[in-house]
Structure formats: structure tokens, C-alpha cells
């Protein structure tokens, strides 16, 4: 992997995929497999190799370890990865998140991660109702959530995210409100709440198709309303369709994260309704703003200088390639500027703050007001969007139809 091209900035974002799960959840379509035999050690070695390849061009402000279940790696395996990252100069990120399953968090692991600079943990809670957890095929219990939360706090993590799911088959409004209240009471800095997605090739999708249950759209909408109202009452601000974060605490206990260098007017944190809350996940915000990002590990995607690429979704194949000293890319596509701009316009609207006109031009080289005028007009007329100051953004009603909005902004003809 060549170093950063002359005159260009190194890539500031890094995603690492850990493709192992003790048990595959009913709804999950991400690539993962059981950590059998020596495959995990082989993966760790391959991952280190891949990190070595990208390191010369990567000075991450944000790192995200997702999965799979990153917390499934043993202490020893984590140490191997972390030491390599330290050696490669990849550990000084302002925000470094690792996803954890509540059943696989230990005090030792938490401490190790914290010591190497991990400062944000995202816990896949999904629900605090035992029956629904079982329905989803999760391996953890509600008690493990509370215990893990305390363990992480004790290890010094001051930026914690809880992943929750709603519209789970069998979930009533009462059950959701209870989970939501209990989760809010834990006092995390961040909440990610997803409506269940029925993705092909998942058991849940098959059950839906087999007619084992129905999707109640009205209920799902009501659950989402309850989420927005309750999280807001608890001090969270929504900054993306499924993401909610708190602002810096008034008692002066600031977040662990150092605010990273603002990039092209981005990531400016403030108190306005269209500003990002303090604890917004900067790594994910980077995706929606179109920042370059490396992706390592099986099935990981990346976007670097106009080239989108994806690694093989097969751990063995991935390892074989890296053992030969090359990255394991399944595909790479160059996005033409207008195609990329359409994509960014589309997905950037998922954030409450939408797009600043100047900001969009800086990111894409295109003027939103010139190229997407009629689309913006349509959305404003039907009450889905508004222009506030110099920003175009979806309204609360419009955020419900962000896919329809996104579709209009895409420019498939340019691809």
C-alpha cells in the first residue's frame, strides 16, 4: 500500500470488522461466523498485516471496531491487535469505539482496551426484556447488560452507547417503554435505536415471509414517536434517524474525547437544534459527511479518494490474501464525482442537520442549490424539508421518509 499521495491528507477514519459471533442473531445480515479452531488467531495475524498495509496512509481521528462481536476476541488476541496498532501509530484517535456484547465484557478486557486508548464502547443491548432477547437470538441477559455497564464505567469509559431495537415481533408499546426507560436510566452518553430491519437471508425474514407474524407499521411509528419524546425528555438530542446523544454535562465532567480538528467546517459541535450534540459518534458522522475511511477485516467497506472497495466476506479467503501480502478486496469501484455527490446528498439528509450549502460544495464540488433545486423544492412543498439559515434539512415528518427523499437525490445516471 503506497503512502499518502503527495499533497493529500492521510485518511482520518478507520473501521475494523471482527467477523466472529458466538451465535448468529435472528435479524443479523452482517458477515460473521462462530470463532472455531485456530481461525481467530489466523484472522488476528491477517488483520495486523492489513493494518500494516494501510497504516502509512492512515492517521485516524476516529476508529470503530464493529462486527460480529469484537469483544469475543480473547485478552491475548486483543493485545496482539492493540500492540500492532500502537506500533503502527494508529492508536491516537480522538474517538475510538469498540462494539461489545454484554455477555462478553470482562473487567480485564475493558481495562486493556481503555489502556490502549479505546474511549467509547457501543453495547449491543437490543432489549431489556428477556423474552424479546430470546426472540432475537441474543446470547445475553438483561442482568448482564447492567453488570457490563458498571464494569465499563469502572474501567473508566465515559462515552458509552447502547444499541436498542424496536418493533421486534411481539414487542408491545408497554414493553418498549419499559426497556427505553431502563436504558435511559442507565445514563449512557449515546443511544442508537433501530427499528427491526428484515433483511434477506436472515431467519427473521424467513419467519416474516412464512407468515409467522405481521409487521404493524402503525405500532412501529408509535414506538418511534415514544423514542423521540422520551429520549429528548431524558436530555438526548437526535442527530440522525437512529442516533441520539447527550451534550456535554453541565457539571463540568466533559467527555473523554478531545474534539478532533474540524474538517472542512464539519463536526462543529454546538447547542443549536441543527448542531451536533457533544457525544455524537464522530466516526459515523464521518460516513454521512463523506469523509474518507479505511475498512479492514473481512467484509469491511472503505471509501478512499473516490474509490469504494469492499473486502471478501469470507475469513479464510481474507486470511489467504493477506498471508500473500496483499489486501483481500472483493470489489472496488470508482465513483464519478456527480454520482458520489448524489449519494452524499442522499445519505447526508439522514442527519437532522441536513446539508449546509457551502459545506456540501466543499465536500462534493457541486452546488446543492443548482443541481438539486427541484428535488429540494418538492420536499419543502410537501413539508418534509426546510431551509434553515444556509442549511437544507429534513423535518421531523421528513425524517420518516428519508429513503424516499434519498432516492430523489441520487444520480444513478452519473454512475
Amino acid at each position, binding site marked *: 500500500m503506497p503512502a499518502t499521495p503527495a499533497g493529500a491528507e492521510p485518511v482520518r477514519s478507520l473501521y475494523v470488522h471482527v467477523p466472529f459471533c458466538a451465535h448468529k442473531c435472528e435479524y443479523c445480515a452482517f458477515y460473521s461466523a462462530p470463532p472455531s479452531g485456530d481461525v481467530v488467531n489466523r484472522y488476528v495475524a491477517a488483520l495486523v498485516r492489513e493494518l500494516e498495509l494501510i497504516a502509512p496512509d492512515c492517521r485516524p481521528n476516529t476508529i470503530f471496531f464493529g462486527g460480529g462481536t469484537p469483544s469475543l476476541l480473547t485478552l491475548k488476541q486483543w493485545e496482539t491487535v492493540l500492540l500492532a496498532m500502537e506500533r503502527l501509530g494508529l492508536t491516537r484517535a480522538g474517538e475510538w469505539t469498540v462494539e461489545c456484547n454484554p455477555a462478553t465484557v470482562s473487567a480485564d478486557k475493558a481495562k486493556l482496551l481503555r489502556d490502549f486508548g479505546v474511549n467509547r464502547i457501543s453495547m449491543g443491548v437490543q432489549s431489556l426484556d428477556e423474552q424479546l432477547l430470546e426472540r432475537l437470538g441474543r446470547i445475553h441477559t438483561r442482568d448482564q447488560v447492567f453488570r457490563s455497564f458498571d464494569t465499563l464505567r469502572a474501567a473508566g469509559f465515559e462515552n458509552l452507547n447502547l444499541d436498542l431495537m424496536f418493533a421486534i415481533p411481539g414487542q408491545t408499546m408497554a414493553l418498549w417503554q419499559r426497556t427505553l426507560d431502563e436504558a435511559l436510566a442507565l445514563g449512557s452518553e449515546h443511544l442508537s435505536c433501530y427499528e*427491526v430491519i428484515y433483511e434477506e437471508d436472515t431467519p427473521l425474514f424467513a419467519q416474516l415471509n412464512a407468515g409467522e407474524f405481521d409487521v404493524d407499521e402503525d405500532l412501529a411509528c408509535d414506538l418511534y414517536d415514544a423514542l423521540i419524546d422520551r429520549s429528548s425528555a431524558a436530555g438526548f438530542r437526535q442527530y440522525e434517524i437512529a442516533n441520539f446523544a447527550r451534550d456535554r454535562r453541565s457539571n463540568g465532567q466533559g467527555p473523554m474525547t478531545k474534539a478532533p480538528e474540524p474538517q472542512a467546517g464539519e463536526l462543529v459541535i454546538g447547542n443549536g437544534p441543527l448542531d451536533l450534540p457533544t457525544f455524537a459518534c464522530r466516526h459515523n458522522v464521518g460516513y454521512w459527511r463523506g469523509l474518507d475511511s479505511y475498512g479492514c477485516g473481512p467484509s469491511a467497506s472503505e471509501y478512499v479518494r473516490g474509490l*469504494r472497495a469492499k473486502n471478501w466476506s469470507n475469513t479464510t479467503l481474507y486470511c489467504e490474501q493477506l498471508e500473500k501480502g496483499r489486501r483481500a478486496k472483493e470489489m472496488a469501484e470508482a465513483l464519478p464525482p456527480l454520482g458520489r455527490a448524489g449519494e452524499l446528498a442522499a445519505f447526508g439528509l439522514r442527519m437532522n442537520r441536513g446539508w449546509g450549502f457551502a459545506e456540501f460544495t466543499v465536500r462534493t464540488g457541486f452546488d446543492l442549490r443548482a443541481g438539486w433545486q427541484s428535488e429540494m423544492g418538492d420536499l419543502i412543498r410537501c413539508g418534509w424539508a426546510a431551509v434553515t439559515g444556509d442549511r437544507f434539512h429534513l423535518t421531523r415528518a421528513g425524517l420518516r*421518509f*428519508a429513503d424516499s427523499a434519498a432516492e*430523489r437525490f441520487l444520480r*444513478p445516471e452519473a454512475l
Partner: protein
Amino acid sequence: MDAAHIRNFSIIAHIDHGKTTLSDRLLHRTGTVATRDMEDQLLDAMDLERERGITIKAHPVTMLYRAKNGETYELNLIDTPGHVDFAYEVSRSLSACEGALLIVDAAQGVEAQTVANVHLAMKQGLHIIPVINKIDLPHANIPQARQQLEDILAIPGDEAILASAKEGIGIEDILEAIVARIPAPKPTDAPSFQALIFDSYFDTYKGVVILVRVTKGELRAGMQVKLLHSGRTVEVKEVGSFNPKPYTRDRLEVGETGYITANIKSPREVKVGDTITDPRNPSAELPGFQEIHPMVFSGIYPINTADYEQLKVSVAKLQLNDSALTYQTESSVALGFGLRCGFLGLLHMEIVQERLRREFDMDIIATYPSVVYRVLMTDRTEKEVDNPAFLPDVTYIETIFEPIVKAFVICPGDNIGDIMALISEKRGEIRHTETLDARRVMLTCKIPLNEILIDFHDRIKSITRGYGSMDYEPEGHEASDMVKLDMMVNGEVMEAFSALVHRTKAEARGRTLAAKLKEVIPRQQFQVAIQAAIGGKIIARETVSALRKDVTAKCYGGDISRKRKLLEKQKEGKKRMKSVGSVEIPQEAFVEVLKTN
């Protein structure tokens, strides 16, 4: 051949009563076709004809038969379309004949279709030779078949020849009867050469091949002839007959049937029923000529709107061999560009649609068919309306007249109650009921054509578990309380679903259609009202509730590319959607409703 040794005849039979098998037997027995060349159903050349056991085009075939009296006769069998949709073509084919074989299945007896065709043949003054076929079947009931001939058709039962075409029984008797009973053709008293055009077809190499029966003089290649109605004079290039494949002859003499070619490229210039004659000394035209008028109209649309040009080319090709088919461009909000086609009747409509699907591989959908209404305006002028979209404003309409048919329904006696209920539901009026035999009755009724367009025949079949049969003949127009029923989506009319219906039927149809549309119209981001209306008055309404959301919960770095591709696909899909009153509806939805109509 001198006229005294020529016999021209056709065969009248119900489907499956053995017409084709008998024709094949005759061809074989007369040595016209050798056994090794026998192919099932020699005369029905189109796959569709073979499959459905019906004849769409006339197929003349010339046979030479050495009779018991030692003389050789030229027998011209003119196989005619068997359905009254083609009544005019049938009447022209019949007028090329002096006689007809009437085939009745010994087990099943006389059927409705036979009645309609026998009426036609009798009107033409043809001598009818009844043949009771399939006498070898174990449940053959010959006395009953004879009785039905007398009771229903007023044909002496004892004149019937007993036969089994399948087993080769009675073939000789039939051939002898043709010679003995059917009169030889008589020349007309025309002053010059004269012949009747009774059909035509298109040949890629020869152009239009005209089927003729010479009524005076003789026809040779090289002659100049005039087509009286189209006014064209052409030079005859080729003269011939069929055996059943075409073969050239040096001439066709008076009384003979055969074909001519004359380098005619447009089938529309050759009208069935026209007279050809000597241009220098023209004879009078033969009686009975009519311009063909379609009775039933329907819009035909390609399912894939991009196939419109292909559809146009296909229909034009079909028309080469089916000049009764008319079409013109039409467009619909719901279905895009298509063709409004005119058909002679229901069967003709079905056949055209089926041929487009099969022979031209077209994926098509047809709109609700309409008959031709006569509309008397308040200023006493009269208009013909075959498309509900063009019905004049009701305030200028004095009366609407709808086409009526006389229908014959034959059904098992057990089902008579249900059939009568069906006829009355269809606004029919039963004129009389006849008992055909121990098992069956025939109902003769007057019924509006528009009521039998869609499911009348199917319902008879289902009520009688397949034993019932139905046929009809046109019987003019009658004043009727017709209203235009429109279906609207958020206030905008979808013409594809508009129909003229009787006032008493409007509400039920409106409700049914609204309910069906509700099932297929996808939810939108706003509420959608589906309404059925007569004039401005809403008679039925359904509501498709608004979507409350349309968003994927999760979308991060790895998802963006996949998600983008998904949305792009949707966006492409929407290009194919039709926008009706700002409601986006996939064309498939309309197609779905039209299919179940």
C-alpha cells in the same frame, strides 16, 4: 371441369363433433392426400386453429371423386370459420357453395353453435346433408340425434347419413350424397366474366392470395380483372386450386373454386364478398357484399411500455391475414401507448390476443371491452361510440342504443334454474325453452351483447360443469339506460377502467372495481381516494391510507453502497410507474385488475 360435374360444399359442425376428422377422411378417400402425407387436421393450418379445434380462415380444397355412376366429379370443400363472430365471412364462404354437410355428434346431439350456423346456411339457400357422426361410440343415440334434427333444425331426420369419420364408416355414402343431393353450380346471367371473392390471405412472396368462386366465364392468368368495390383493376398472375397445398392450374371455369394472385400488396384492397369481373364490360356485383364492421372494441397495451412499437408491427402483420381486425393508436394514463382494436366478436378478440402472445411473443394486456353503441343526440343526429372515453356529454344525449343479440344456450335440464338466473342477471329475456332430449334443453333469449362480453360463456361452462354451450347472432340495437362509469384516483379519471354499463349494474361494478384497485394500489405518502362515479356522482369509494414512514433504520459506511443501489433500483422502477392524480401506481397494478376483470 364442366359445371355439371362440380360440387361446392362446406361443413357445419360444433367443435369436436368431427368436422376435421371427416375432412381428412374425404381428402384421403378421394386420393387427394396420400396416407403417408396425412397429418392430423390438414386444413387447420394455424397452431391455434388446431389446438382450439376451430377454423379461422376459409380453406378451400379441391378433390376429384370417381362416383358409383362411373363419372368423375370435382368436389370443392370450402372449410369455413365455425363461429358466428365470423358470420359475414361464413356467409360469403357459404355463398360460394350449393350445399353443406351438417355434422351432429351421435352422442352429444345438436349444439348451440350448430344452430346458429345452420340458420346461416339456410338463409343462403344451401342444400343441407345431415350426417350423424361417431355412431361407433357406445353411448351413441341415433334416434335421438335424428329427432333433434327435426325438432330443432327442421331437417328430416331420415335423410341423415350414419357415419364414423374416425372408423371410416359412411365416407362413401357421404361422397355419393354430395354428388347426388347437392346441385351443380349454375352460371349467373352476367354479361361477362364474374367471380366472388370469399376470402383472402397474405403470402410473403405472392402478395395477397384471393380465394374465388367463378360464377360466370372463366379465369386465366394474364387476364385483366376489376375488383368492383375497391375499384382496382389488376392483372391475374397465377390461377390455381388447393389439394390442400396450392397448385397452379391454367384456368378456373364457371362453378369452380380456387385462387388467384395479382401482385396485390395490401390486403385491405381485397374485400371479402367483392365481385371480380371484366373491366371492359363489367358484370353486376354479386349480392350480399358488406363492409366489415367490428362489433367489439378493446384497447391492447404492451405490458412493457417500451414494446409499443413492436406491438404496432405485430398487429399490422396480423392484420395482413385478418382484414376484419381494425386498430388505431390510443394512449392511456394508466397503461401508456397502445392500440384500440376492433373485433368481429368475442372469439375474434380472444384469438387476436392469443396470437399476439404466441406467434409474436408479445406480453399484452387488454382493457375492458366495449360494444358499439348508437347514441342519438338531442339535435337528432346519431353517433357511434365504441370507446366510453368518447361518449358525448350526457346533457346532449337523447338516447343510447345498445347492440342486442339472440343467444342460444343449450344446457342439461338440471341446470336450467341457474342458467335462467344467469340470463336474467345479464339483463337477458328468455323467449322460449325447448326440450331437446331427456337430458338437455335449449333456451333462446334476447340479451345485450355487452353483458356476454366478459364471463357469460365461462359461467355457463361452470354452472353446467362443461356440458353447456352457447352461441349468438346479432339482432340490432335497443334503447337502453346506459351510464358511463368512471374510476378515479384522487379525482383523476383512469380511462382504462371506464365503461358504459347499464344503470342497474353501475353501482355493483363500481364497488367491485374500487375494492380491487384498493388491493393493488400501493400506499403513498398521502391518503389515496379511489372513487367510482357516474357523471359527477360518486357511487363507491375506497381509501388507501397514507404511509407513515419509509426509511431504513440503519445506514453506516458499509451499508451506503448497498443501500444506494437498492434506492437506485427503486428510482428506476418508479420511472415505469404511472402517475395518476399525483398517485404513483405501478403498471402491474392496473394489469392485475384488468386481468381479474
